[in-house]
């Protein structure tokens, strides 16, 4: 009989008519974001930053501008560079996160915001003052130490600079102690990996 395919299609749409919608009412409801979400609201810890500008170098678009000046004290006295300018031009940022990946001192973290709509382009530049004053809820993207501690930027409170570093991270401590150096990298063809640890841990 002809038209059965059409009737079936009608039944499918009817079934979906009865079901609740899958879209959400955005400003009121939100899709739960994963802690790894890469967004704006960069978390920058001035205490950890040496002004080495690795992030600026590795940014594929060159949108991070860093100007440093020598602090008053000598390095022996614990002095370091002062960060005068730390501008991130969000208007051109593509949130690839390479700046975070490049930062050797865990000073820069991605954030979880995505609602930075502005009427002027210059308002899209995150300045150093804004970064200093921001509530620092770092994303766990490329920061396994945060991920291991179970930190969730959407639920937990803001983190202090002492709490975000890699030196607190036990796994890294073991790595520093040489646990990883002995590790033989796995290659295709190795069949000997079964049994060490539960599958897909």
């Amino acid at each position, binding site marked *: *009989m*002809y038209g059965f395919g*059409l009737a079936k*299609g*009608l039944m*499918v*749409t009817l079934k*979906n*008519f009865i079901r609740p*919608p899958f879209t959400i009412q955005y400003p009121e409801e939100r899709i739960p974001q994963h802690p790894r979400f890469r967004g704006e609201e960069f978390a920058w810890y001035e205490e950890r930053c040496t002004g080495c500008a690795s992030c600026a170098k590795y940014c594929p678009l060159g949108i991070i501008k860093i100007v440093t000046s020598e602090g008053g004290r000598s390095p022996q006295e614990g002095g370091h560079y002062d960060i005068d300018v730390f501008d991130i031009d969000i208007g051109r940022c593509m949130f690839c996160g390479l700046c975070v990946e490049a930062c050797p001192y865990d000073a820069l973290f991605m954030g979880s915001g995505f609602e930075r709509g502005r009427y002027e382009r210059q308002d899209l530049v995150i300045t150093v003052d804004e970064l200093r004053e921001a509530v620092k809820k770092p994303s766990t993207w490329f920061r396994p130490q945060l991920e291991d501690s179970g930190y969730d930027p959407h639920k937990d409170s803001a983190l202090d600079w002492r709490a975000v570093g890699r030196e607190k991270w036990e796994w890294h401590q073991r790595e520093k102690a040489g646990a990883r150096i002995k590790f033989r990298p796995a290659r295709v063809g190795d069949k000997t990996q079964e049994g060490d640890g539960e599958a897909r841990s």
Partner: protein
Amino acid sequence: MTPFLQENVVFREVYCFLGGNEGNASWCGGDGLLPGGFEWAAYFAAGFVIMFILVNAALLGAAVFVWSERRLLARFQARRGPNRWGPWGIFQPIADLLKLIIKEDIVPNAADRLAFTLVPIIMLMALLLSLAVMPFARNTYLVNLNVGILYIIAVSSMSTIAIFMAGWSSANKYAMFGAMRGVAMLISYEIPLVLSLVGVVLIVGSMSLVSVVEAQTVPFLLVQPLGALVFMLGISAELNRTPFDILEAESEIIAGYHTEYSGIKFALIQAAEMAGVLAASGFLATIFMGGWSGPFWSGQLGAFWFLVKLAGFVMLFIWIRATFPRLRIDQIMAFAWKFLLPLALINFLVTAVQVYFFGFYQGDVPGELTRNELWIMAAINIPVALIAIGIFGRFSREKVRVPEPVFQNIAPSPRTMEVD
């Protein structure tokens, strides 16, 4: 002077309230407000009131239909639809309308201004004229024309002219495509559309929609299943609804004939289209579902029954729109000529034989078929419909055959790995 609208309740009340002292005594209780010799003023005032109600009801109905279509379509698509303005977003069409009114009314430089401007008016006019004969409830209609069905068909065809005018005057190739498609398609679909109604006319013995409703002791959907199917498909082609919406196929020709329209003209075209769906649903309900007659209290609840049936058909239109892709122009034409036209002719033939057999014209006065005779006709016509659809569906059998999926399990070529 006896205005031919006198059967209408609203008209009569207004006319008698205002009407002159003379000439209305026969069907008005007493004297009206106006002095004698002013019957014409009462006549126009009463006419205006009734037109005002009807036009506004149609346009408001279009607004409600826009809202409900958007909401229902969204629900079919597992979305939510407009829900910001008012409860459940009910004021959304008003917001849309306000937006469209304050937008610039653009007329392209190369456009034929007069034809371009006339289009929304003609489209809306065609729609509103066709509402004149629709019985909304018992004794609630503008006029009981004895050629009501013919009148509907004739008046609604005027929108074809409007569509062609829009396509031609816009000086836009997309609009021209839409218009050419529209003319080709709409004219083809007129024929099965008219023929599908011939069966109903034969049974009722009158073209008046009022007598069609009164004759329906059994819904004509059962008595005339083929006619109802052909009319439903034909009317959805006339209304440019999926799967026949090639006139304004947004994925092919942007917006079709109204590509260049903006602002209030666009709003009027949309209103005409949307209210057209309502009108078509109303005619479907009237002709095939018994109009205002319901299972009980048909006299008091006539408008309610009518609205329920209308809503049912509107829902069906929306449901189909949410589900089906559209056909191609040549397939649509083939569908009209090779499928709908034979079905309509079969329906016509079978009905004619039945009506003759039941001795419809006995004596001088056309009698009505009894309820039992209608049931017998239904019992014959439903199998006839199924068989006819089956026979004519076979011609497209090869086109709709579903091929079996083919898999080729290629053996993976071995990888030569260097393992250190």
